């Protein structure tokens, strides 16, 4: 279980290192906790390293940055660009409302944020907010890969203290995943 728990923050570090600022003194924090197994993973990543890591990830991504998977459907970066442009053209907009089993999740565009949020009573408590200029930057350029470096540059302007990007709590296992940035190196 702990190995799975490691994969999550590692993936999260990779993904968010892609999108986080190289602001001096800023840190990315990831916390994964499972109450049942008493396992905890804490990652604190200096954001100044993120910008250095990005080109290495881009070079060695081996196609991993050229598509993403949503609900078992693979979307290329070009398809994502087209979808994103259409969504932005609509303004504030509820993109999707997902009701599956005990989960009730809403994906929406709210002002300057792309939001993924659970409704009350949902088994998973989800709260994800990504600034839209970061998504713009991530999908910018003509390459068939996500534009990590541009996303880093864009997000550097959002480097505020204690900004939570992801907060997920699994109601059954009492597992928790939180990703945030702050100016402190410790959690």
């Amino acid at each position: 279980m702990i190995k799975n728990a490691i994969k999550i923050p590692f993936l999260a570090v990779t993904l968010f290192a892609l999108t986080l600022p190289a602001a001096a003194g800023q840190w990315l924090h990831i916390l994964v906790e499972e109450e049942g197994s008493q396992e905890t993973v804490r990652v604190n990543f200096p954001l100044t390293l993120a910008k250095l890591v990005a080109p290495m990830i881009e070079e060695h991504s081996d196609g991993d940055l050229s598509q993403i998977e949503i609900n078992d459907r693979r979307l290329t970066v070009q398809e994502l660009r087209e979808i994103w442009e259409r969504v932005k053209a609509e303004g504030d907009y509820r993109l999707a409302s997902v009701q599956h089993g005990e989960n009730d999740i809403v994906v929406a565009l709210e002002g300057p944020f792309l939001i993924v949020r659970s409704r009350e009573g949902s088994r998973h408590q989800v709260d994800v907010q990504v600034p839209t200029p970061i998504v713009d930057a991530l999908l910018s350029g003509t390459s068939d890969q996500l534009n990590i470096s541009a996303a880093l540059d864009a997000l550097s302007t959002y480097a505020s203290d204690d900004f939570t990007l992801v907060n997920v709590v699994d109601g059954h296992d009492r597992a928790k995943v939180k990703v945030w940035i702050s100016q402190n190196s410790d959690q």
Partner: protein
Amino acid sequence: MLMKIGIGFLALLTALMGTAAWAVVQSGVAYVSVDDPSEGVSFHVPVPLVLADAALAFAPEEDLRQARRELQRHAPFLKGALQELAAVEDAVFVHISSPYEEVRVFKKNGYFVVDVQSDRESVHVSVPVEGVQRLMGSVAAW
């Protein structure tokens, strides 16, 4: 006469030891410590990086060229990462804990440290960041 020679010899020995100690302090000392009773493994080795520097002088030229090519290929990342690591404050980068094991990756007093404690084994590796910077700089000639 013999006393003068003895004093001179002692002075020379002291100077040599002082120089060696200075070199060790300057380059730093890496520590590797592994305990695994189930495998009968137990070793604790301090490695002065000055020895690694010295070993470079005796390394086969072709191997050095190969290492240099590899390092130079990733030079921007490696140089930058090591510089950032040297500059960043002391901190715990990764901390994994469970009832069975505890893993910590952190920086303290200029050392990059990996520490693993589990029911079966104990591993501790610490390397001086600036010493590694210098060593890599020597190999890669950057």
